[in-house]
C-alpha cells in the first residue's frame, strides 16, 4: 500500500519546507488561505441563514474539510473540470465560484448558479469547470470518467477531479468507474474525502478494507493516503496525480482522511459519535494549522490574517445582499430548462 509521500523535501535553497512553500509564491499561498476562510465563513453563514428560515430544504456542510477542497484544486487550471458531491460547497468555491452567486442559488434566486433550480445539493459552476454537485452518492463518478474520456478524445491537456465521500466507495458506480478509468488510462483524479462517516455508519463498519485507497490496487492505479487536514500534503498528492493524468498515465485514487465537524445534514443529532471525538478533530482545524504554518514560514503575520478575514467578511456581506436582492424565478418558467428546445 502506497503511503503518503508528502512534505519536507529539501528544496533548492536547502530548506526543509513542506511542498507548497516551494511550489507556490506567497501571494498564491495567501489566496489559498483566503479560499479556506471563504469556504468556512460561507458555510457558517449559510447555516445561519438556514436557522433563520431564509434558506429552505437542507444542506450538507464541509466545515473542517477545507484543506481537502482547496489543496486538491491548487494544481488545477481553468480548463480542468471537477465533479462534486452533496457536500460540495467547498469544491465549488475552491474552483473559483463567487460567493454572491452561490448565496443566490441557496436563496432560490434567478442569479444563482443554477437559477434557483438546483439549490445546495446541485450547486455547479460550469464556466469554471465545476460540472456540479450530486445528490446521488457516487453519481458523479461515471460522469467524471466520461468527461475525462471526452478530454482524451478531443486531445485536450486537461484533467477531471472526481470528489466523493467514504460512503461512495461501497457503491457499484465507484468500482465500475475506477475500472473503466484505468483500462482506458483516462485523465481522472479520484478524490475520496474520507470524513469517517456516511450518514451515521462509520467507514470502519461499512468498508471491508482499512483504507479506501487500498481499493486502488484492484484497479491497477496508485492509491495514496493523505492527511486531509494538511493543505500542503493534499496539494502535493493532487499535483502528482494531475501530472500523471496529464502525461497520459491514467488515474490515481487519493484518500484525504478528514472529518466533518457538523452533522450529516440538518436532521443529524450526532448519536453515532462522541463529543470527545468531535472535539479532538476540531482541535485539528485545517485552517488554524495552515495559518500557523504560514506564520512560521514568515508568509503572513496576525495583521495579514486579520486582513484576509476582513476581506472575506466583506465578500460574505455583499454576497448576502446580492442574493436577497436577486429576483425569484417566475412561476410561468416552471418547466424551463427541462429540454433545450421547449416542448409545446
Amino acid at each position, binding site marked *: 500500500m502506497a503511503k503518503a509521500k508528502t512534505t519536507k523535501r529539501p528544496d533548492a535553497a536547502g530548506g526543509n519546507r513542506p511542498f507548497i512553500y516551494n511550489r507556490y509564491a506567497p501571494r498564491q499561498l495567501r489566496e489559498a488561505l483566503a479560499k479556506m476562510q471563504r469556504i468556512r465563513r460561507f458555510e457558517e453563514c449559510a447555516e445561519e441563514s438556514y436557522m433563520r428560515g431564509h434558506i429552505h430544504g437542507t444542506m450538507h456542510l464541509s466545515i473542517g474539510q477545507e484543506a481537502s477542497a482547496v489543496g486538491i484544486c491548487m494544481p488545477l487550471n481553468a480548463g480542468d473540470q471537477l465533479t462534486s458531491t452533496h457536500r460540495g460547497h467547498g469544491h465549488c468555491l475552491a474552483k473559483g465560484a463567487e460567493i454572491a452567486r452561490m448565496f443566490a442559488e441557496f436563496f432560490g434566486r434567478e442569479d444563482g448558479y443554477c437559477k434557483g433550480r438546483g439549490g445546495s445539493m446541485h450547486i455547479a459552476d460550469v464556466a469554471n469547470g465545476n460540472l456540479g454537485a450530486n445528490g446521488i452518492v457516487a453519481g458523479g463518478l461515471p460522469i467524471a470518467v466520461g468527461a475525462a474520456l471526452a478530454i482524451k478524445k478531443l486531445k485536450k491537456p486537461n484533467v477531471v477531479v472526481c470528489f466523493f465521500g467514504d460512503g461512495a466507495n461501497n457503491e457499484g458506480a465507484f468500482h465500475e*468507474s475506477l475500472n473503466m478509468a484505468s483500462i482506458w488510462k483516462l485523465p481522472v483524479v479520484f478524490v475520496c474525502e474520507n470524513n469517517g462517516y456516511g450518514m451515521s455508519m462509520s467507514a470502519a463498519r461499512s468498508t471491508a478494507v482499512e483504507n479506501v485507497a487500498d481499493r486502488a490496487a484492484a484497479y491497477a492505479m496508485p492509491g495514496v493516503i493523505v492527511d486531509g487536514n494538511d493543505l500542503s500534503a493534499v496539494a502535493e498528492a493532487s499535483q502528482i496525480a494531475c501530472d500523471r493524468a496529464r502525461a497520459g498515465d491514467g488515474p490515481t485514487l487519493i484518500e484525504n482522511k478528514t472529518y466533518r465537524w457538523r452533522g450529516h445534514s440538518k436532521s443529524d443529532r450526532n448519536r453515532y459519535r462522541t463529543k470527545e471525538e468531535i472535539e479532538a478533530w476540531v482541535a485539528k482545524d485545517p485552517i488554524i494549522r495552515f495559518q500557523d504554518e504560514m506564520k512560521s514560514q514568515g508568509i503572513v503575520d496576525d495583521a495579514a490574517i486579520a486582513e484576509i478575514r476582513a476581506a472575506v467578511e466583506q465578500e460574505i456581506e455583499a454576497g448576502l445582499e446580492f442574493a436577497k436582492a436577486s429576483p425569484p424565478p417566475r412561476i410561468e418558467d416552471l418547466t424551463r430548462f*427541462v429540454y433545450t428546445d421547449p416542448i409545446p
Partner: protein
Amino acid sequence: MNQDIRALSYAEALREAMAIAMEADERVFLMGEDIGVYGGAFQVTGDLIERFGADRVMDTPISELGGAGVAVGAALGGMRPIYEFQFSDFAMLAMEQIANQAAKMRFMLGGAVSVPVVMRFPAGSGTGAAAQHSQSIEAWFAHIPGLKVIQPATPHDVKGMLLAAVADPDPVMIFEHKLLYKMKGPVPAGHYTVPIGEAEIRCAGRDVTIVATSIMVHRSLAAAAELERENISAEVIDLRTIRPIDRQTVIESVKKTSRLICVYEGVKTMGIGAEISAMVVESEAFDFLDAPILRLGGAETPIPYNPDLERAAVPQTPAIVEAARRLVTAKA
C-alpha cells in the same frame, strides 16, 4: 433527400445511420458491450469497427451503470455518444444515471449544460429469451421529464430518427423491437431525419383509430387489412415517439373516427394506452367518442419462456381485429 432507395433491414438501416453520423461528425462515437469485433448481440453495429476503429466503436466492460454514466459524462464533455444496451432489460442496472443524471442535469443546473446522449435499447418479446431479456419498459422512461423516448417501427424511420436523435441536444432513448431487426423496408440513401415527436398515419380510415407503437404498428396494419374485408375502415397511427407524444394527430383522428384502440406491447396497466386514453378524454375529442376506449397491452405477467405462452402474453393480430370489430359493431 437522396432519391436512391434500397430495401434494407431495420438493423442495416440503423447501422447506416450510425455510420453517416460518425462520418459527418468526429464527436459521434459508439459505446456498448460487445459492439466491436463481435458486432453487437443483434449485429446492429456489425462491421462498423472495421470502418471506424476501436476508439469510435468502443467495447465497454459489462458495467451498465458505469457505461451509461460515462456516456453522460462524455456528452457533457462535448462528445456525441451513442450507447447501446445489449438488452433493454439491462437498463435497470443503469437507471440511476439515466433517470437521476442524464434526464435532470440540464434542469438542475438551470440550463447551463445540455446532455446530447443517445441510448439504444433492444426491446420486446418473441425471441424465446424469457423474462429478463424480453421486456417492454419504454413507458417507464416516458414518465421522466428531460428524456425523449422513441420507438421507430420501420427501417426508414429508425434511420431517420437515429439521425434526428444524434442531432438532438437532449438525451434520446431509442427502443428497438428485436423482432424488427430483420424486417426489410425501403430506406433512402444518404442523410435524412424523421422528426422526434411526430406520429405518422400509416393507413387512413373512417371507423376506428388504432394507435400503435413499434411492432404493434405492423400487427395493427395486418388487422386493418383484415378488417377492410369486413368493410371496417381502420386508421392506424404509428405513434413513433412516446415522449413527447404527438397529441394533435391522435386527437384529430379520433374526432374523425369516434373510436379508439391503443395497442402496445408493454404491460397494459399504467402503460402507454392509459396515457393516450386519458389524453383523448381530456381533449375536445371526448365529445366525438361513440364507444368506450379499448387498450390492448401486455398481460399482467413476466414474459414466459414457452412459445405459446409467450405469444399469449402480448397483443397479436387476431385480438386487434376482434377488438375493432367489437367496437364498430357495438354501435347501433
